[in-house]
C-alpha cells in the first residue's frame, strides 16, 4: 500500500468519526438547553467550544450561532462541514482505493451539508442526518472493503479519533457536572444511554456512567474498547515476532494508556478525571505522531534541485 494512500485512509477514518461524534455532541447540547433548567447556558457553551478546540465567542451567543459555527463553518477546524470536507478530500486523493459506494456516500453527504439542502432541515434533523450518514459510510467501509492493510489504517484512524472525542466529551461533562443531566448527556452523546440502562438500570450515577464510558470492554465506544481496537489494527500492520516487548512506539503508547485505565481501581481512575482526560488526549497526539513517522513519512518526497544553477 502506498504511504500516501495509507495516510488518506487513516484521515478518512478520523474525519468521518469526528463528524459523527461532533454531531452527536451538538444534538445533546441543543436538547440540554431546552430540557434542563439547571444548566448554566453560558458555561456549557463556552466549554463546548473549548473542548472542541475552538475559540469561544465573546459575549452571549444564541444556539443558532453555535450551530452555525460548529456545524456549518466551512473552514473552522473541527466544524462538521470542515471534517466532512477533510474526509472527502482524503477520499478524493485515494479514489482508486476507496470503494466507489463509499466515495459516493461521502461526496453526497458533504454536498448536502455544504449546500442549502441541509439548512432547510430542522437543526436536530440536520444533525441526525450527518450522524446517520457517517454510520453509513463506516458501514460501507466495513462491509465492502477487504480488511487488509488499508482498512486497518481506516480503523486505526477511526478508533484513535473515538478515544480523542470521548476524552473531549467527558471533559465537557466534567466541566458542567453541576447540571443534573450531565452524565445522562455524556451517555447520550456517545450513543450509550440505551446500552447503559440495559447494563446498569435506569438510574444514572456519575461513577457508573464514567466507568461505562471509560472502562466497559463490551461497549464499542468506550475508551478501553477503542484503545484495544486501535491496538489490534496497529498490531496487524506490524507483523513480526512477539517474543518480547513491542517494536512499535504507537503500540507501546496505546498499550500503556489502556493498562493504566484497566489496571487501576475505578476510584483511582476517577481521582483527577480532567487531568486523566488530558493525558488521554496527549496519548492520541503522540500515537498520531508515531504512526505518521513510521508509515507516512514516505509520502514526503525529496525535491530535485540539480540543474537549477
Amino acid at each position, binding site marked *: 500500500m502506498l504511504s500516501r494512500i495509507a495516510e488518506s485512509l487513516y484521515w478518512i477514518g478520523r474525519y468521518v468519526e469526528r463528524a459523527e461524534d461532533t454531531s452527536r455532541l451538538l444534538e445533546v447540547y441543543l436538547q440540554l438547553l431546552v430540557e434542563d433548567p439547571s444548566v448554566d447556558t453560558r458555561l456549557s457553551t463556552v466549554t463546548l467550544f473549548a473542548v472542541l478546540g475552538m475559540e469561544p465567542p465573546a459575549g452571549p451567543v444564541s444556539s443558532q450561532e453555535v450551530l452555525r459555527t460548529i456545524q456549518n463553518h466551512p473552514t473552522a477546524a473541527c466544524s462538521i462541514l470542515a471534517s466532512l470536507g477533510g474526509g472527502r478530500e482524503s477520499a478524493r486523493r485515494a479514489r482508486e482505493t476507496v470503494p466507489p459506494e463509499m*466515495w459516493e456516500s461521502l*461526496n453526497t453527504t458533504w454536498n448536502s451539508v455544504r449546500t442549502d439542502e441541509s439548512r432547510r432541515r430542522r437543526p436536530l434533523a440536520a444533525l441526525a442526518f450527518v450522524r446517520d450518514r457517517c454510520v453509513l459510510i463506516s458501514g460501507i467501509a466495513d462491509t465492502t472493503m477487504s480488511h487488509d492493510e488499508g482498512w486497518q489504517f481506516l480503523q486505526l484512524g477511526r478508533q484513535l479519533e473515538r478515544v480523542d472525542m470521548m476524552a473531549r466529551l467527558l471533559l465537557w461533562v466534567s466541566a458542567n457536572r453541576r447540571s443534573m443531566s450531565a452524565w445522562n448527556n455524556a451517555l447520550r452523546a456517545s450513543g450509550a444511554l440505551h446500552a447503559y440502562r440495559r447494563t446498569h438500570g435506569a438510574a444514572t450515577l456519575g461513577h457508573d456512567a464514567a466507568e461505562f464510558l471509560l472502562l466497559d470492554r463490551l461497549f464499542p465506544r468506550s475508551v478501553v474498547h477503542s484503545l484495544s481496537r486501535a491496538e489490534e489494527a496497529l498490531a496487524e500492520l506490524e507483523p513480526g515476532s512477539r517474543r518480547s516487548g513491542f517494536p512499535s512506539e504507537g503500540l507501546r503508547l496505546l498499550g500503556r494508556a489502556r493498562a493504566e485505565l484497566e489496571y487501576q481501581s475505578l476510584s483511582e481512575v476517577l481521582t483527577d478525571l480532567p487531568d486523566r482526560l488530558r493525558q488521554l488526549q496527549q496519548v492520541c497526539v503522540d500515537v498520531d505522531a508515531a504512526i505518521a513517522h513510521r508509515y507516512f513519512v514516505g509520502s514526503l*518526497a525529496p525535491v530535485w534541485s540539480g540543474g537549477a544553477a
Partner: protein
Amino acid sequence: MSPWFDGYPLRPDSFDEVFFADGTLRPAAAGVLEALGQLDPGELHTRVEFLRRTYVDQGVTFDLGGRETPFPLDIVPRIVQAAEWAVVEAGVKQRVLALEKFLDDVYGEGRVFTDGVMPRKVVTTSHHFHRAAHGFNPPNGVRVHVAGVDLIRDPQGDFRVLEDNVRVPSGVSYVISNRRALSAALPEVAALHQLRSVQEYPLRLRAALTACAPRGVSDPTVVVLTPGVFNSAYFEHALLARMMGCELVEGRDLVCQNGYVSVRTTQGLRPVHVIYRRVDDEFLDPATFRSDSLLGVAGLMNAARRGNVTIANAVGNGVADDKLVYTYVPDLIRYYLGEEPIIAGVDTWRLEEDAHREEVMDRLDELVVKPVDGSGGKGIVIGPAASAEEIAALRARIEADPRGWIAQPVVQLSTVPTMINDRLVPRHVDLRPFAVNDGSGVWVLPGGLTRVALPEGELIVNSSQGGGSKDTWVLADTSERPHEEIPEASVHPVAMAMQRREDVRIQPPRSQQEQQQQTASEGGATC
C-alpha cells in the same frame, strides 16, 4: 414525430446526423427519437435532472480554473451505425499503425527523411521532438499504447480526421461513465438497441500495459502516474487505476535508484515495471527535462533507457501529433503501409511554406488558424468570428513564427439534437475514438467520446471552452451472430435454491392472539 422536434432549426450549412435536409428523420436515428418522444415533458425533465444529479453525486467532474465542475452530459445519445463505425474503426487502426512506424523511424534510422517523404526540418523543429528519446527500443515495439483520434463529419457527412492525440489523450473515462449514467436515465430507450459495450476498455488497456513490460518480467507491477488531484483529468486517472486494479501514484510516490523505479509503500520500496503516465513529457523527469518539475521523478528517463521500466505512452510521441506533421500523415500512410488513407484529413495550408502562406495571408478572416502544438482548443482563431484586431494580431504572430501555425478552411461540424433549456436544438459535435495498441494489434473502443459545443453555432467543443458530451451509441451489426451459444441451464430453477427458513413466531396467527390478549387485558383494567 415527437413534439420535441417542432421547429427544430436545422442548420443549412451542416450535416445533421438525425434529420435529412428536408426535415425527415434518418431511419437509423428514428428508434431513439421516437422512444424519447414517448416520454412526457415532466418525465423527460426528471431524467435530465437525474443525469445532472448522478454526476454531482459520483463526483464525475473536471477541474475548471481550480473548481470541480460536473461534466455536462446531454440526454440525447448520438447514434453511429455499424457500417459507419466500420469505416471509423479501420481508419483509426490504419492511422495508429502508420504513426507507430513513423515514430519508430523518427527516433531510429530516419528513412522517411532520406527517402524524401518529409523534410527532416519538420520533425526537428517540433516542440515535442525529444532527442532524449532517440534510440529507445520499446520492449514490444509499441510507442502509442493509447491514441485518441479526433474526427468530425463534414457537410457531406463523411468522417474526416481533425487531429491525432498520441501523447496523453484523455476523455475515455467519460465514455465509460456516460454510458452507465445514460443507460440508467433512459433504460427503455437503451434496451431498444443493441449497443456495443464500452466496459472492455480498462481490461484492454491493462492487457496492453502488461504486454509492454520490460523483458524478463512475467508479472509486472503497473501504475498510473497522475499529476495530482488538481489536474483537470484527475477523475479519469482515478477511474482507470481503479478499473484496472492498479495503484494511482504521484511523482512523489516514486523513487529511482540505480536505474530502477520503485514506489514508496508502508512496507518499504516496491519495484515498478510499467508506468502509464498522464504527465506531459516536459514534467516527467526533472533530471532530463524541466528541472523545476515536481510532478515527475528524477532518473525516470535513465531507468527507461536501461529497459527497467516502460513508460506508456512513450516519451517524444508529441512529434507525431504536431499539426504540421498532420499534413504529411496521408503520405506517411502510403509510405509505411502502402495503402490509401481510409479517412481523409482536412485541407491544410502549411504556413511555413512561402507559397502556402502567401495564398492565405489575405484570407485569414475566412479560415481557421491553429497553433501546431496546441491542445484543448487553446490559441485557435476562427476567422469569420474574429475581430479585425484579432486578425491583425494573428497575422503578426504568424509572420514571427510561421512554423508554429497552420490554416484550414472553416469546416462546419455535423450537428446532433441536444437538449438546451428543455428544447431540442442542433449543436455541433466531434468524435474522439480511442485506440489501444498491445503490440499484436490495434483495438478501437466501439464508442468514443462525443463532445458537443453547447453555445449556438459554436465550433469549438472542448470542455475547457464550455463544451459538454454525449453518450455515443455504436449499434451492433445484427447480421453477425455471437459464435457461442450459452448452454441451457442443467438444473431446474426450482431445484437451485434450498428452501428458506423463517422465524415461525412472527407468523400472523400468533401475533393476532397476542393482540387479542392485549385488548383483553386492557379491557379488563378499565372495568
